[in-house]
């Protein structure tokens, strides 16, 4: 029992989870109905469901980002890729005669994801073949990509009227939001793909020591291609969800700053930006913390002018609590308490 407690406390997910619970608690105090989940029109309805649904795009991108970060990289272009994918899908739907049909939507989604895939390959090419530093390689697509998205929409917000497409963002599937289902599938897929095969270990190995990995025969180049492509693909999927959620492609704002949220989620989840070992479960918690934070701002009624300060406080708190220095301090505290217990026991025995 005690050992279990110790394991829990020393786990790197401990503090993020505590922070998540704290945020939930704040919400419940501010708005007692926060945790209530009701069934409306045959699907689940409630703040928690909203958090899951709105957090799904961030989570999906963060999953891809986790793998990129594990290889010591970073992908700043995810927001732009999301915007492009949304723009492509919407312009296809608008251009078709029957945007409401399932087939059209399938084509639109497929083309959008294909383009996202190509963009991922492009990032992978710049990073692994040309050898450009990831932050700059993806900064290029971050800048130009938004331009491309706007080129597709000509700067307009393309509103589409297509029920199957809309369902991607705000539909329900067996009572669960479709976005949440997609998020869960991607998460599970990534977890299976990397942990059930050797992919995860090889990615970590490249992230920790690229040269040693190369000499051990690891196909670093192929792996980099894979992770950047996967990341862009997840950005594309997230872009479709975001776009479908507002039934419109907004090249400017779709996925704006989502790269920061995704990176933040990854880091809150305990994965180091220096590459190497990663934790998808941590990323999940991180994404939930971020979305809950956003919702908290709304429900608790934090005035917009101090929203940023509040965010800063939360991020700082999580990071400080997670830090080794704090851990050591807690360990000392525990030791002292244990010692006192022992002394008390001794005294009692004698």
């Amino acid at each position: 029992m005690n050992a279990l407690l110790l394991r829990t406390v020393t786990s790197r997910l401990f503090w993020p989870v505590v922070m998540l619970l704290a945020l939930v608690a704040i919400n419940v105090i501010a708005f007692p109905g926060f945790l209530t989940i009701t069934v409306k029109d045959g699907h689940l309805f409630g703040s928690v469901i909203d958090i899951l649904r709105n957090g799904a795009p961030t989570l999906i991108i963060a999953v891809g980002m986790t793998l990129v970060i594990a290889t010591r990289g970073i992908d700043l272009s995810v927001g732009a890729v999301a915007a492009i994918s949304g723009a492509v899908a919407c312009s296809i739907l608008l251009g078709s005669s029957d945007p409401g049909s399932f087939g059209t939507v399938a084509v639109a989604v497929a083309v959008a994801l294909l383009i996202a895939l190509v963009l991922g390959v492009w990032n992978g090419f710049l990073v692994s073949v040309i050898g450009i530093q990831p932050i700059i390689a993806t900064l290029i697509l971050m800048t130009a990509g938004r331009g491309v998205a706007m080129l597709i929409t000509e700067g307009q917000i393309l509103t589409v009227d297509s029920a199957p497409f809309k369902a991607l963002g705000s539909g329900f599937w067996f009572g669960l939001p479709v976005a949440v289902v997609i998020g869960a599938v991607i998460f599970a897929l990534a977890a299976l793909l990397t942990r059930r095969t050797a992919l995860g270990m090889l990615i970590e190995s490249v992230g920790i020591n690229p040269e040693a990995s190369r000499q051990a025969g690891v196909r670093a180049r192929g792996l980099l291609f894979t992770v950047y492509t996967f990341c862009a693909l997840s950005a594309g999927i997230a872009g479709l969800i975001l776009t479908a959620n507002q039934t419109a492609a907004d090249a400017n704002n779709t996925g704006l700053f989502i790269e920061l949220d995704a990176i933040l989620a990854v880091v809150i989840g305990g994965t180091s930006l220096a590459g190497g070992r990663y934790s998808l479960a941590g990323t999940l918690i991180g994404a939930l913390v971020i979305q809950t934070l956003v919702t908290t701002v709304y429900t608790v009624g934090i005035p917009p002018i101090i929203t940023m300060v509040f965010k800063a406080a939360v991020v700082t708190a999580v990071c400080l609590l997670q830090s080794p220095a704090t851990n050591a301090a807690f360990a000392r505290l525990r030791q002292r308490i244990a010692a006192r217990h022992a002394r008390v026991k001794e005294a009692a025995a004698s």
Partner: protein
Amino acid sequence: MTAPVVEMTGISISFPGVKALDGVDFRMFPGEVHSLMGENGAGKSTIIKALTGVYPIDSGSIVVDGATVSFSGPAAAQAAGIATVYQEVNLLPNLSVAENILLGREPRRFGSIDGRAMRRRAKQLLEGLNLDLDPGSLLGSHSLAVQQLVAIARAIDIDAKVLILDEPTSSLDADEVAELFRVIRSLRDSGVAILFVSHFLDQIYEITDRLTVLRNGRLVGEYLTEELLRIDLVQKMIGKELTALDEIGRRSHTAEAAAAAADDRPADFVRAESLGRKGAIEPFDLVVGEGEVIGLAGLLGSGRTELARLLGGIDRSDSGRLEITGAGTRLRTPRQAISRRIAYSSEDRRGEGIIDDLTVRDNIVLALQADRGWFRPIPKKRQEELAQSYIQALNIRPANADALVRNLSGGNQQKVLLARWLAIAPRLLILDEPTRGIDIGAKAEIQKLVYTLAENGMSVVFISAELEEVLRLSHRVAVLRDRRLVADIENDGLTVDALLALIADGSVADEQAPDAGQAPDATQAPDAGRPADAGVGRPAENPGSASDPTFETTGDRR
């Protein structure tokens, strides 16, 4: 006897899962060279790190110069007069040699660093070690050995009363060691207390006055070097008698006999024809037969590593051709080499070898897994078996497949690396300094392993700064000088001196005959008290050998 300048009592340090030090006492006297002895993972480096404040101690006390201290880190220790060269080169590849030597103590003029004075000072220091380097060159462009010397130059420049050298000689060859010892002696004579850690017993017996032996993080005892027989020392270190070495000695006889029968040359496994790479190594011809062990000999920077890297597919050749089992081929990546069952184990364990944040298990299966591709994972059970079998076979400690490799001692990391390459069942194993930093027991085991593997048909290219080791293991020795293969000869009664002559000027003729008779060491089975790693790494003890031209430069200083 004077009072000890450093006195550590009852030092304990635990890491998660390991008690690295358990109530160890250790002291150092001014004007004395002291050594810490013990197997890989015994806790030698940990004591040094405890003393210099890298690790906080759990219990115990440290007294320096009569005052109880608790250093916050190497900077504080340095300020208190303790200069340290830690195990593994810890320098900055991105800065110049001069900066690496003088960083933190740069000569200044009007508040600015005086670059010229700095280079001059660095040059002097390097010359003190008989090293002719451009102090302005980037450290990263030099070999590990040179870097090790630079680290030493840095430490001896600090005007310290305690100088700590943790395995400073692991990649040095005889000349450098001689120079280093000369410096150590002169520092000792001026009253500095010196801690010298090494796995080379000869070096220990040559230079140290006092020994502290550790085993599994516990103190075995403190002894005066001259009062402790080697055989006893070894026994104290490993806790039992060393027997493996006898065997190797015998095997080397048989090996030689086999090599002598030159007619039945084994089938070629690899044949390189004027293979070369501009700026790295001149085109060379080399044949490695199946089951054959080729030793590469040469001085620092002679191009042994470069040659090995071409064979291992680490670097691409830009001229010549390569045949593997008779078929022409090109190795463009390590991956291609591995798929042809050629393994190259780098000399730079930390930079190009281990993946320090992964577990022992992952490190061991890495190359095998990479070869299979990521979608064909090695089943967990098989991974566990592999890891356990190598942990046992190579005696990796701690014997925990889930330990992070970064937390292993240097020698154990090397074993993990070796296990990784053995796991792919290579047909050609290229070992670049595989025994660096490995304790005598383990070294014997590795040598034995190389022998066994070769007898079972594996080809081996073996690089070592210790010529004895090269001679003991190889069927043939290829000699490099100035990035050129200058000789490729049967190891048929070859001696260290003959080899040295070859290395020096490429001529075999005059030197070999007399030396061969005079020094049959390579073929002689060392007794248990004179372990196998003995040899080259000893400076002049018996000045006067006519055949030794270095006599003038090193011998007279004693």
